[in-house]
């Protein structure tokens, strides 16, 4: 994309090795005038795997295994959105116990995801102590999820028509113990992010997005809620077990990076509350209902609230054993626009935190960033950009 006059040489370097625990790399182009960002654009697709095409060649049940693996952090909401769509087309009623367990796992997933983000965002800002403590605490939830589902990632909790496994009293007690431990820790983190001088210096009044801008830019999830836009699919269009176990929308008004920290942490208290409620009031009954291999023809849209925001699935059936079309619109795709639009006017040193602020669905340290100055362009690794930000604010 050409935005300035003058001849420029641009260097594009292939993405380096990926960190095995973290997700997608991406390529950013930041144009700067001295220290100040004047334009930003993004190139995605480095882990594009052709899943939307792939599911057309598999049957409805197999497709779920592929769609679950679009994302490691929010695998369960992908499977839930897909299953809800298929169940709508098939016209089946999923038993209430299964819908409640779906919500239980979804909220446990939100807890692990937000704690993961807390650590990663702290790390991007050079605050590694917070990174280590939050990830240590996150292990409580990872253990609980492993005990419940057999996996730390990709829980594979759903089947078409319900869930695969039940929750017994012993597992319920283990979950309650984990939440009891995490709740005071979360209060502590909220205090840290709102009082620590270094962190506040990098988050207060940085990356501010007004409610009007958030709406115009199509932001979703905590990114939008931090600007006071009350978008939360669990509340706006309740699905699965949420009608029986409602949650409250958590918003902030400042719209800056600090507000994004506050919203994600405060949402955890809602998650803890609803997890305890489900464990106390799990409805009796079956875990699933049968869905026939051929799904009746039709189109449907299902929307769920992933940890990053609204996840939308469009399904089309032509009456066969395979899906005709599955379209997946992930929340991060919506939120990129807000980063690219708020970056100009900020310092280059703010860019790592701006990107981390939307909780992008990737955190690979080997991302490549192209910095374009008036007469030349340089390629920096993410590590170099992050270090630049840390040293700038030292």
């Amino acid at each position, binding site marked *: *994309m050409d935005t300035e006059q003058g001849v420029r040489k641009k260097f594009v370097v292939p993405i380096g090795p990926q960190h095995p625990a973290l997700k997608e790399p991406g390529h950013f182009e930041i144009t700067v005038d001295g220290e100040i960002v004047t334009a930003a*654009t993004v*190139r*995605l*697709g480095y882990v*594009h795997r*052709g899943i*939307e*095409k792939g599911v057309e060649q598999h049957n409805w049940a197999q497709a779920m295994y592929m769609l679950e693996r679009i994302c490691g952090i929010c695998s369960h909401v992908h499977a839930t959105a897909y299953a809800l769509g298929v169940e*709508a087309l098939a016209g089946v009623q999923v038993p209430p116990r299964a819908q409640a367990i779906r919500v239980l796992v979804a909220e446990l997933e939100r807890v692990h995801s937000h704690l993961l983000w807390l650590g990663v965002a702290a790390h991007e800002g050079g605050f590694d102590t917070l990174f280590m403590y939050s990830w240590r605490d996150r292990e409580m939830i990872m253990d609980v999820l492993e005990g419940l589902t057999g996996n730390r990632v990709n829980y594979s909790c759903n089947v078409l028509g319900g869930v695969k496994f039940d929750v017994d009293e012993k597992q319920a007690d283990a979950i309650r113990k984990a939440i009891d431990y995490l709740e005071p820790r979360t209060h502590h983190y909220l205090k840290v992010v709102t009082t620590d001088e270094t962190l506040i210096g990098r988050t207060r009044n940085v990356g501010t997005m007004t409610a009007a801008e958030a*709406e*115009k*830019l*199509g932001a979703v999830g905590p990114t939008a809620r931090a600007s006071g836009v009350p978008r939360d699919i669990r509340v*706006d*269009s309740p699905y699965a077990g949420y009608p029986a176990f409602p949650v409250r929308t958590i918003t902030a008004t400042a719209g800056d990076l600090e507000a994004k920290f506050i919203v994600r942490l405060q949402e955890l208290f809602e998650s803890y509350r609803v997890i305890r409620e489900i464990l106390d009031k799990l409805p009796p009954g079956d875990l699933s209902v049968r869905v026939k291999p051929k799904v009746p023809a039709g*189109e*449907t*849209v299902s*929307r769920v609230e992933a940890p990053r925001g*609204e996840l*939308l699935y*469009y399904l*089309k059936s032509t009456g066969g054993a395979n899906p005709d*079309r599955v*379209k997946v*619109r992930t929340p991060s*795709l*919506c939120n*990129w*626009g*807000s980063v690219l*639009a708020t970056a100009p006017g900020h310092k280059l040193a703010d860019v790592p935190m701006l990107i981390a602020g939307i909780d992008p669905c990737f955190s690979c340290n080997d991302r490549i960033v192209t910095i374009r100055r008036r007469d030349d362009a340089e390629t920096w690794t993410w590590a170099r950009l992050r270090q630049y930000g840390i040293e700038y604010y030292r």
Partner: protein
Amino acid sequence: MDVSQVTVAAETLLKPFAVGAFAQTPGGIEAVIRREDLPAAVKALIDGRWGYLAAITGLDHPWPKAPKPGAKPGEPAPEPAGPIEDRLEALYQFVSGAVIATLRVSVSYHDPKLPTVCPVIPSATLYERELQEMFGFVVEGTPDTGRLLLPDDWPDQVYPLRKSFTGLGM
């Protein structure tokens, strides 16, 4: 505002542009829109503060050339429901609360042009880039035509989400 009020509000805003009657779906309503009316229809929703654009979904509708499975040999192919040509369809999916309002715009393979909606909705640029590289739509006036998801060395004019694409043969 309850769901029926929200739905009626969408119908009122879209009525000048809808071709034929609105279709009722479990999630909301759908309207077929002519491509030349698309920017105005989108602007009507945005100016009327009706929800936001949640997604743009591309669909491939190749004209069925093979007989239906189970058809007796020698039987003619089924009558196509629409014009006799391969078509693409773009679904502009707007949401407000629990209501989904879908604008359906259809074009043919040999004239796959759509007008951009980016002047009204700047964040639509990512969705329009995806439509172009995956299906072969040509979104006129879209600000960024760079590849979004496919690699730099992906061959031109090969659109992976069309039904006819079955792999690069590697």
